[in-house]
C-alpha cells in the first residue's frame, strides 16, 4: 500500500509538468544547498520545473523532471540526480536528458548540539546532456567547496561556496557558440555562493517552514559568461515525506524569467 501511495504521488507530480506555469529553472547541474539537521537514511526526490527564457540566441521555454536519490550515513551525505527535459528554442522542440550530477557533502565540524556545523562539498557532472540542444555542458565538470549552517533557534542559517571547473578547454566549452546550457547556465569555471535562512511557520506539528536566500555565480577566466544572481523563497511541508514549492526571481545575468520548482521527496530510514 505504501508503494502504491508513492507511485500515485509521483505520477501526480509528473502530470503537473505540462500543466504548471513556465516560471522556473533547472538546478540539475548545481550542487544542492547544505543539508541541515541530522537526518539519516535514503531520500528520494522528484521535482518538476519549467521556465520561459530569453538569451541573445534563443527565446523559448522548457519543462524538466528531476529525479534525485541521496543517502546520509553519519557524517557523510551523497546524492545523484538526473533530469529529463523538453525544451523549445525559437520554435523547435527537443527532448533529452540533462547532465548527470553526483555530489557529496561531509560534515566535518559541529558543536555537540549541532548549533554550528560545517564541512566540505564535492561534486561532478557527467556530460549526459546534449550540449547542441542546450541540455548539457558537453563535458565533465568538477565542483568543490565548503558549507556551514548555524541553528539559532528558531532560525536556521546556511551558507555554501563552491568552485566549479570544466575538464576541458574554454574553447571546447563554447564550441556550440553559447555560454553554457540554457537548462542550467554555468560558465567553464565559476564560483558559486548560496546564502539562506529557514524559519518554521505555525505550530510545530505542521512541520511547515519558509526558506529564503540568494544564489550568486561569478565566472572565473571565462569572458563569454556573465555574473548570475537570483533570490529565492521556498515553502516546505513535512519531515519524512516532504513537499516543497520554491520560487526563484532572477536578479542579474540569468536567461530565465521567474522560476518555480515543485518537489516531493520521501525519506526511507
Amino acid at each position, binding site marked *: 500500500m*505504501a*508503494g502504491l501511495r*508513492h*507511485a500515485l504521488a*509521483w*505520477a501526480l507530480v*509528473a502530470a503537473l*509538468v505540462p500543466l504548471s506555469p513556465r516560471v522556473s529553472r533547472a538546478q540539475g547541474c548545481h550542487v544542492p544547498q547544505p543539508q541541515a539537521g541530522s537526518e539519516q537514511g*535514503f531520500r*528520494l526526490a*522528484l521535482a518538476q520545473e519549467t521556465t520561459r527564457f530569453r538569451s*541573445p*540566441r*534563443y*527565446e*523559448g521555454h522548457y*519543462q*524538466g*523532471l528531476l*529525479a534525485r*536519490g541521496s543517502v546520509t550515513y553519519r557524517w557523510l551525505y551523497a546524492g545523484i540526480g*538526473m*533530469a*529529463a*527535459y*523538453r525544451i523549445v*528554442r*525559437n*520554435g*523547435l*522542440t*527537443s*527532448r*533529452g*536528458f540533462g547532465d548527470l550530477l553526483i555530489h557529496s557533502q561531509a560534515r566535518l565540524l559541529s558543536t555537540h548540539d549541532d548549533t554550528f556545523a560545517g564541512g566540505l562539498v564535492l561534486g561532478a557532472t557527467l556530460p549526459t546532456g546534449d550540449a547542441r540542444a542546450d541540455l548539457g555542458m558537453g563535458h565533465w565538470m568538477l565542483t568543490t567547496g565548503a558549507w556551514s549552517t548555524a541553528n539559532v533557534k528558531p532560525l536556521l542559517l546556511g551558507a555554501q561556496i563552491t568552485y566549479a571547473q570544466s575538464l576541458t578547454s574554454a574553447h571546447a566549452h563554447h564550441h556550440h*557558440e553559447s555560454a553554457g546550457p540554457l537548462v542550467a547556465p554555468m560558465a567553464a569555471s565559476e564560483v558559486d555562493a548560496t546564502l539562506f535562512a529557514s524559519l518554521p511557520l505555525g505550530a510545530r506539528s505542521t512541520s511547515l517552514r519558509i526558506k529564503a536566500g540568494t544564489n550568486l555565480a561569478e565566472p572565473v577566466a571565462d569572458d563569454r559568461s556573465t555574473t548570475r544572481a537570483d533570490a529565492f523563497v521556498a515553502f516546505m511541508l513535512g519531515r519524512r515525506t516532504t513537499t516543497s514549492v520554491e520560487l526563484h526571481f532572477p536578479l542579474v545575468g540569468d536567461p530565465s524569467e521567474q522560476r518555480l520548482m515543485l518537489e516531493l521527496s*520521501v525519506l*526511507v530510514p
Partner: protein
Amino acid sequence: MRSNFLGSCALAVMTLGVVACGQANETTGASGQATGATCPPDSELTYETFTRDFMHDYCTRCHSASLASADRNGAPNDHDFDTLAGLRATASAHLAEQAAAGPDAENSAMPPTDPRPSTEERRKLGEWLACGMP
C-alpha cells in the same frame, strides 16, 4: 520497505524516460565533416549568381531577420542569411560544416526539413565558401 524503495526508483526512471524520449520531430544528416572544397581559379559563383537564390530556396524560411523567434524553427537569432552581410557575420566554417559538400564529404544537417538542396548545389556552396564568400 525495500520493495517500496526499489519500486519508487523504477518509477522515477520510467517517468524520466517518458519526458526525455519524445517523438523526433526532424531528421538531420551528417555535419562537421571537412568537405575538402577548394576555390577554382575560374569560379564564377557569387552571392548574386548563386548564393542569394540558394539561401532563399533552402535557408531563409528559418534564418531570416524578418521572422519572430518562435517562427525560426530553432534557428538562432544571430544567424540571419537574408543578406551577404548576414552570411559573412556567420563563420564560413560553420556554414560548410552544416550544409556544404566537397570532394571529401557532404554535410547535410541543414536544412533539417524539405525542400533540401541537391548534392551539386551543396558542392557549389562549398566552392563559394572556399572562395571567400564573394
